[in-house]
Every structure is written in C-alpha cells, then in structure tokens.
C-alpha cells in the first residue's frame, strides 16, 4: 500500500464517519452540538484564508457572520427572497466590506492590525445595535431579527423540521471549504499569500503585489464567512447583534485556529474538535458558577499550547501520523 492510498483511505473513513454519525447520535441536543462544531470548523477554515495563509490576525470576523445573517434574513422577511439567494448576496456584501476594511488596515502590522479589525468590527456592531431602520430595511436594533417558523417549509426555504438536514448542509459546506483551502494552499495564490505574510518586502521583490493578494484573500474569507451567517440564522431562526456580531465569536474563531494550527488545512477542524465540546460542557456545567469561565479555560489552554506547541496541535499530530503511516506502508524512516 502506498502512502497516497493510505491518505485516501483515511480521508474516506473520516468522511464516511461524519456522514454516518447521525445514525448513532439521534438526540437533537447532541446533534446541535455537532452542528455547531462543524459551524465553527467552517468559520475558522474561512478565517484561515486570511488569518492563517496571509499571516495576519484579524479579530473581527463575527461582523461578516452578522452581515450574512442580516442580509439573507431581511431579504426573506421583507422581499420573500429565498435564503439560498440571500446567502450569496450577503457573501458579496461581506466581501466588499471586507475589502473596505482591508484597504487601510493591511498596511499595518502585528498588534496594530488586530486592534484595527477589532475597532471596525465593534463599530459596525454598535451601529447595527443603534439602527432600527436603514431606508426601507428593518434592522430592528438591539432586538435582532426573528425568522418566522414556517408550517410546511421546503428545501427552497432553507428551513427544516428536524436537525438532520442542517447537519448535512453544514457538513457539506465544511467539506467544500476544506477542499477549497486545500486547493488554494497548493496553488500560486497560496504560495504568494504565505510569502507576503512572512516577508512582504522579499515577496514584493519577487513580483508579488502583497496588498492585492491579501485583499483578495480577505474578500474570499469574508464571502465564505457570511455564508455561515445565513446558515446560523436559518438554524436558530433568531439572532441579535450582541450575540452574533460580538467579540466572543471573533475571539473563539481565533482561539480555535491558534490552538488547532494556523495556516494548516486540518487545524481548524482539530481545534474545533477540542474546543467546541469543551465550550459546550463548561457552559452546561460551570456557567452557574461563573458565566464566561469557558473563555478563561480557553485562555489557559491557549497559553499552554503556545508555550509547548507554538505551531498548534496539527504539527505534532501530523508528525505522529507520518510515523504511523511509514510503519503501515513499510517504508523506512529515512528520506
């Protein structure tokens, strides 16, 4: 058996397991936990296009989740447009706003860039909280939007009576976005993003317009992030600015990426697999004691990971898999 075959078999097993999981997990509560796990893995993968490959640390991506949710929901509520269409409109708007935010901020480096993205994100959230109507659009300020429950929803309504379709929708979205980032990371764009993120001057000297590539990655990332916003709106059927567009969500995405492994394909999934259950159980069992304790625990984990595994959990796991694969395929350890 060759290494390539082994990789394929492993991938197929993981994918099959993911598709078959609802056969075992039938409780809606646990299914919901899995759905949110995939949702976060998806968001972090989309974030990773900028935060991982392009080497900057944006901390305001919840705004784009919000833009997706608001756009598709307003279009559905006021104009009867299917959320499937609204989702794409939201993605396009998010991409444009992402580029507008990126134009001034990508000139900055390190902490200054982080702070600016936080400022932009919080600014937009506060604006949404204080706007009841924007022209003909009812935004409803801090009360948020309620997507009415339909009696006999069809697929076109992006609304389902059971959790199962949501599970498969987010699973397919996750697989698509993972395949997309895999493709990007092996193409010219991926090489150029990584080079520009690591040494912008050297990259420019090799013919790379670093700012343009970062903006392109930002547009892609924001577009994909907004699609998840529509998914969230249709899953929860209710959302409000503070819950959806706040810093909690932005930080959790960054936490998952940093702990899982920034700039790796599997990192967001591995990070979400570790942190999401932790988040859910600390919320269920510890939130009576102290709300927000889960973020403190995340912080502790992040500190430990950054000290002992600065590249995240993916690198050592990949090395372990490498060793196992060599044993199974019977190839020597020497290169």
């Amino acid at each position: 058996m060759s290494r390539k075959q082994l990789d394929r078999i492993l991938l197929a097993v993981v994918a099959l397991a993911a598709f078959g999981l609802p056969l075992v997990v039938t409780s809606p509560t646990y299914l919901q936990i899995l759905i949110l796990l995939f949702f976060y893995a998806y968001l972090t993968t989309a974030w990773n296009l900028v935060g991982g490959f392009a080497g900057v640390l944006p901390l305001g991506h919840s705004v784009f989740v919000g833009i997706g949710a608001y756009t598709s929901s307003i279009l559905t509520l006021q104009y009867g447009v299917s959320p499937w269409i609204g989702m794409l409109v939201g993605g396009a708007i998010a991409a444009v706003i992402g580029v507008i935010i990126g134009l001034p901020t990508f000139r900055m480096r390190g902490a200054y860039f982080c702070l600016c993205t936080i400022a932009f994100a919080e600014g937009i959230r506060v604006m949404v909280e204080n706007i009841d109507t924007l022209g003909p659009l009812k935004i409803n300020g801090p009360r948020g939007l309620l997507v009415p429950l339909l009696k006999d929803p069809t697929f076109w309504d992006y609304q389902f009576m059971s959790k199962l379709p949501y599970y498969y929708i987010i699973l397919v979205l996750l697989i698509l976005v993972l395949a997309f980032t895999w493709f990007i990371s092996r193409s010219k764009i991926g090489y150029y993003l990584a080079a520009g993120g690591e040494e912008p001057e050297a990259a420019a000297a090799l013919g790379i317009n670093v700012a343009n590539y970062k903006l392109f990655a930002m547009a892609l990332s924001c577009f994909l992030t907004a699609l998840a916003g529509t998914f969230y709106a249709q899953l929860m059927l209710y959302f409000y600015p503070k819950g959806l567009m706040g810093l909690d969500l932005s930080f959790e995405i960054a936490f998952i990426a940093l702990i899982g492994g920034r700039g790796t394909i599997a990192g967001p999934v591995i990070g979400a697999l570790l942190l999401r259950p932790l988040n859910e159980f600390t919320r269920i069992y510890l939130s009576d004691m102290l709300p927000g304790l889960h973020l403190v625990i995340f912080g502790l984990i992040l500190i430990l990971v950054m000290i002992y595994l600065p590249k995240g959990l993916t690198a050592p796991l990949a090395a372990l898999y490498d060793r196992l694969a060599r044993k199974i395929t019977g190839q020597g350890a020497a290169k």
Partner: protein
Amino acid sequence: MSNILEVTNLTKHFGGLTAVSSLDLHIKTGEILALIGPNGAGKSTVFNLVAGVFAPSEGVIKFAGQTTHGQKPWDLARLGLARTFQIVKPFGSKTVLYNVMVGAFLRTNSTQKAREIAEEVLVTLQLDHTKDMLAANLTIADRKRLEIAKALATDPKLLLLDEVMAGLRPTEVDDMIGIIRGLRDRGVTVFVIEHIMRAVMALSDRVVVIQFGQKIAEGSPEAVTKDENVIKAYLGGEYDAA
C-alpha cells in the same frame, strides 16, 4: 551593445539628508558592474531606487529602455529586474524548494511547472541537497545562495546582488564568485554591491565608486583601485596616494 540600465542625475533626499546626489551610471547588457564605496555611501539606497522600493527625488532610471518612474518592485520584477537583500529575507517557516517556487511562480501559474523551474535553479546554485530543509535552518552561506536562487527563479534580465559575499568564509567566497560568473554566462546582467575587494576584482568588468551619494570614480577594477579619490575615500584625506 545596448544598455540594460541607464541612470541619469539620480538624487534622493531623506528629509534633510541627501543619500544619493546627481548620480549617473549605466550597465551594458551582459556585463558585471560593481558598486562600491565606504559604509553609508548610499549604495543600498541606489539599489532600492533602481528596484522601485523608493521613488527618486530627481532624475531618471531607465530599465530595458523604459522609464521606471512610479513602477513598484513587483512591476519591475515582472519586467525582468530581480534583487537580493543585504539582510537576507528567506520565508523561514517554509522549505527551500517552497522559497524558490515563490520566485518561479512569476513566470507560470502551474504549481508543477514552478516546481520544475525551482528544482533546476537549485541545481544551478548547488542547493538541491537542501531543498526539503526549512529555510530558517540553513547556514549563512546557503541563505545567501537561497536569496540568489529566489531571485534567479523569476528569470531576470538584470540581477541586483546586495553584498551576497558578506559573512562568507574565503572558500565560500570563491564558490560564490563561480556562481555569479555562471549567471552571467546564462545571459543575466549582474549589478553587485560588494565590500570584499577580492571578489570585486575577480568578478567585475567595471566598477563605480560612490561616496556621500556622489560618484567619485568609474572604470576597470585595476584603474579604480589606483585612483587617488578612491584611496582617500577609504583611508581618509590625510593619506596621500603613494
């Protein structure tokens, strides 16, 4: 033979400081030109002006017959101007092959093709045994070679080498001289900044000497090292040329 680079009346002010002042120089296609001068003479500023990092305060730079005013480093790279950095800038977290492929992607969109170009360049620079190493783990001599490899992978017409010999041991300097000669034989015009005079003497067809941003001498390596102004510049005014 035509001139690949023509610099006329080049001047650059940084605030009150004039780093380069009314400099004229040209490079013929296929030659190796060395730019030398004491520390702080403005050599690297000249490189940065030619490579499009800074815009000149005055003067004209013509590359391959085209005025480069307003063109950014990435535009010039596409036109065939590549450079290395005095303080090497590898993409440290990536492998050597990855580093060189970034350069190779300038002339192709195919990952497969970029890998082929990169592997060929690595063989030229005798770096192929390091291709799977992380760039951050290379020795200083190999890092300097990697700088050249990245630049060479963009398939340049003119290559600016900024002190690629600095910090190398004498035998490594000899290897590097061989490599740079090999580049010229491949048809690349080379413009070097160098402090190691042995290398300048061995390599260059012509030498331009600058001090305080102004040209004080130009000519063959032998002529330039005997020039009174040059000796004064390096040793100080109180010494007479013997």
